[in-house]
């Protein structure tokens, strides 16, 4: 099937993109890498009247650290994240995430902004961003606003708190503190598949080895990306020993809301959240304490 008819507009600047979005409101859709959107159009699961192509907005493709924050342009392609020396060295959890998305052909074009804005609970970046406590920059006709990642996803799949006339322009991640580390682990049926379950874990330790920050995000075990708040709570202040990790993993599994589907029965997925959380936390701990 081919997509239904629409008007195709190429934005040549962020301002122009926003003007177009503002003009057409909910009838318009942003086109980034297109890997999620075009299949939706082809199967007529979305039928916008106007498509605003933002692929020419090269100024939205960047990764840089400034003022203790990592700034990632929303149009940054997965392949660039994966290959970036900065990301590999300083944000291995992000490299972990980009690397397990589909295959290189998809990663050549798929964008980190699209991955988040699509709000697919099966997508991998949301969990990582939840773990990292990212902030998203939404740019609209009246300027920019910052959305904490936990307020970005709503209670429904494929829905965000972005306004129809807003563009997601940047992702901000706190630069890694001295003793911090994270990991993203994904269990798949077949390499490159959407996750059976995925877990992102990120921890910051103080000088005495106590946890000062803990973030846990879950992929594809609920209608939306899930932040395992109670599990995070258990970790905070702890020394991140194996017993606490096991307890937090059990808690994360309890916070998952899996349903049985083609990637496995619900109880299996829940069990896997526990296993993966345990492994991800151990790896985060190891990275936080100087290991790989």
């Amino acid at each position, binding site marked *: 099937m081919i997509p239904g008819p629409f008007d195709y507009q190429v934005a040549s600047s962020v301002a122009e993109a926003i003007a177009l979005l503002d003009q057409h409101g909910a009838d318009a859709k942003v086109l980034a890498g297109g890997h999620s959107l075009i299949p939706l159009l082809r199967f007529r699961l979305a039928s916008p009247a106007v*498509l605003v192509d933002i692929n020419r907005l090269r100024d939205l493709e960047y990764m840089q650290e400034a003022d203790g924050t990592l700034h990632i342009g929303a149009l940054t392609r997965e392949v660039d994240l994966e290959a970036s020396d900065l990301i590999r060295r300083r944000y291995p959890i992000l490299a972990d995430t980009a690397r397990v998305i589909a295959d290189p*052909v*998809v990663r*050549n074009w798929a964008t980190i902004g699209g991955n988040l804005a699509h709000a697919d609970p099966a997508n991998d970046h949301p969990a990582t961003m939840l773990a990292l406590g990212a902030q998203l920059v939404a740019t609209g006709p009246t300027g920019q606003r910052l959305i904490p990642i936990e307020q970005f996803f709503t209670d429904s799949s494929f829905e965000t708190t972005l306004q129809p006339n807003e563009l997601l322009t940047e992702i901000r991640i706190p630069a890694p503190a001295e003793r911090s580390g994270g990991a993203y682990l994904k269990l798949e*049926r077949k*390499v490159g598949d959407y996750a059976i379950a995925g877990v992102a874990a990120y921890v910051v330790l103080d000088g005495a080895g106590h946890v000062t920050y803990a973030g846990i995000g879950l992929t594809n075990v609920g209608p939306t990306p899930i932040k395992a708040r109670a599990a995070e709570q258990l970790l905070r202040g702890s020394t991140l020993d194996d017993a606490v990790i096991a307890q937090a993993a059990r808690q994360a599994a309890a916070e998952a809301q899996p349903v049985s589907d083609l990637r496995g029965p619900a109880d299996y997925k829940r069990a896997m959240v526990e296993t993966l959380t345990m492994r991800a936390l151990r790896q985060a701990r190891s990275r936080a304490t100087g290991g790989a």
Partner: protein
Amino acid sequence: MELELRINGVIKSLDVAPNELLLNVLRREGYYSVKHGCDHGHCGACTVLIDGLPRPSCVMLAMQAAGATVTTVEGLGSLHRLHPLQETFIDAGAVHCGFCTPGMLLSAYALLQRNPNPSEEEIREALAGNLCRCTGYNRLVQAVQRAAALLRGEDIEPISIPDSGGRTRSWDLGRASLEPYEQTGTGVQRVQVMMGQPERQIDAIKLVTGKPAFADDCDLPGLLHARLLTSPHAHAIIREIDTTEARALPGVHAVLTYKDIPRIPSTSAGQPWPEPGPHDQYSLDHTVRYVGDRVAVVAAETADIAEQALKLIKVDYEPLPAVFDPRQALEPGAPRLHPEPESYGIYDANRNIASHVHFEQGDVERAFASAELIVEGEYVLPQSQHAALENHVAITYWDEDDRLVVRTSSEVPYHVRRIVAALTGLAPRRIRVIAPRVGGGFGGKHDLIVEDLCALLTLATDRPVRLEYSRVDEFRSSRVVPSQIIRLKTGLRRDGTIIANQMLVLVNAGAYGGQAASVSAGSGLNSLPLYPCPNLRYSAQAVYTNLPPAGAFRSNGALAGLFALESHMDEIARRLGMDPLALRRKNWLKEGEPLPFLSQAQARYESPIPQAGLASPYSAEVRLAHCGLPRCLQVVEEQLNWREKRRQGQSGPAQSGRIQRGVGIALAMHLPTSAQSLLSSATLKLNEDGSFNLLISLPENGNGSHTILAQIAAEVLGVRPEDILIHLPDTDSTPFDTSSDPSSSLYACVHAVRQAAEQVRQQLLSVAARLLKVPAESLSLADYQISAPGGKSLSLSQVALQALYGEQPTPISATSSWNAACNAPTFAAQGVEVEVDTATGATRVLKVVSAIDGGHIVNPVLAEGQIEGGIAQGLSYSLCEEMVYDQQGNLLTTDLNDYRIFSARDMPETSIVLMEGDGSDPFDIRDIGEIAIAAVAPALANAVADALGVRLRQLPLTPERILHALYVVRQQAARPA
């Protein structure tokens, strides 16, 4: 909108609509190398390079290409100047059906552009977005490695025989017409001995250069596009169907429902007449029997209009109770799928039994009663699909003589003609079926999926019509590999001697039973004879349910039968405390023994169709002349390091730790189909330049059969294989072929070609004898020349000119045919080593070893490629493939994301050993790709059992099934005794 397309170095100005996909625009513009395999960016067949980066053109708007440079394979290299990647793809035997090849080449090209020295892992990763269903990927990886070396300026040893340049050799009529010459021994190219040589695939160049080789690669003026309306109900009667609005939609040329066509009971199974299965299908019917069943078909100016028209068709369905489980379908009071009196050939329509097969010998019950040990087990195989990368497609049109041309991706062209004739009312003389290269079949293209409807639309519109399936259509509305429930019961003596064996099979035939009879026979026929014992029973029922119909499938049931039998053998060994290989060696088939079943198959393989299914070629007892099992098993045992590894597995001291390893072995044998008639024919004729046309009706689906046939003809005729020009199947010109299963077909076609070549050779020699004035017996034919003892020679070209235009003009040509079945089985042993994560159930296959004894090997590179492809499919089926439905019979796995098939990254190391029977018949040549898939699943299940100590009796071996089995075992162990 205007689009300036910069493609392959040229600039084209095109008018495209904003919603047009780049894929469609490129194909419309004649870039046929860009293939359609799915619609979601899952398969990679449509890959193009955008500014040098691979991108699926099916999920990209054409307008997005504005300002970018687009590269397709047409821009990579040509016949005269192949790119090193195109060279190495051919050389390494990495091109099978060729449908994935263009996309694969482009992904590889992009990789080498940015990384001239990639590691194996980097290559696998780079190819991961391009699915291939034919190769096992390892040859592709090898080809990329070799191209990288070439591009770095390194020398590489060719794998196949380098191209002779014969395709572009010039021809000099003046020289050709010269008098006989004295042979000087110089300037003559020596022809290698082709048989047994790694010749390059003769038809690979067109595939690596992206030429329009497939059924859909053509355009016709006035072509209409057809779309199918399918049933949303698993079982319903169409009370009313109103097509008024659909017909009124501008651009719509025809809408057909059951009301518009005659109701003729038939079968879509492309089998020899009279087809043995039930005739329970109608091109369009007033009853729908599965979700996805045909309801109506529309032809319109564009696919989009046709799609819109489908939505305007108003159908009033009266839903009927549906049944999905064959066990329930057999119960009294179950919904009946085929109560209609017009259908015929159904074994027992009242009980939903489409077909029934029963073989028996000895006194099974008495033997069970006297057995010292009885082991029983039930094994479950899922419904899966062939998932060839090329979807079903047909194009039909009236030619200048008002004859209907059917251009189709089919493996059974003559059956298509006969069945389309029956369904359209046209006499066969008015139908011409052309079967270009098949983009992967595996049995899925042995059924008529689109041809009849496409033809009916051309009849209705007098226009050319194209009906192409989407990937969703493929999953929902074509044929499946049926699910089976197999129960085994074995009676033994304590020493491990099997005294009775019983296999009961329930095949979920789905809504129509066309292939049910052969499927039911295959599971037992291709497994049980491995362990003949005096008391054997095989009983199989194919039962109707409201699911997509069963189709034919690679290995003809062996995969299912062997998964059960070879898992069961390991289970028996465990119960006896015996080495599983020793148990096999004690009981297996031995040379000189009669093959069980074959003689009886005739007696009990009953089909209600008069004359059908009874013609078993094995009328007398067949004794096994040669058995390859001992050598195959020995090789696999050694290569897998079985003894050592087995000691480390569960059968040895229990492993601890998260990751556990195990090894498993299984045996296989494959018999060419016994229940169908067999006939293959070949025509060969000489051209003026000493090349030959070979006309055959055996389609090329990527198994390399055309190269093998060319090698055989070339061998007999003293020329290079590229001088055997194969005409693709065309019922107007290529001679008759029954298109049976691949093994039987290739075997018969090999003999037909050999005979035709020998006859042509005789004709050549007798013309030369006349010209040289010597007796024909004294002449020799080699290296394109016929030489007399004294040193006088004539080139083939000279002989051709003299024969055709000389004193007594006579054509040099012959047609020959073959109808005797091969009755030597193919044997195999396969071994698998796995690693299982006991916390997640995830399985990683580390290694697969296959030893195959399958007749004479004409081309080792092609043979190994076929086997590796079989292994890849076998692993993919065993680990990840399963069609899943909801409670209402709606398919949930409708794309290649949810229905997962192996990619380059999933494929383990393979080791392949080829054996060649007893070597007594150099023309005992069969399709060994069939058996290569057969024992992978049980070997894998046995390896998992070795690693974990738990037995999984259901495929696929998904992580949750493995973990669940582990959990159950641990629970049992924890329970106090």
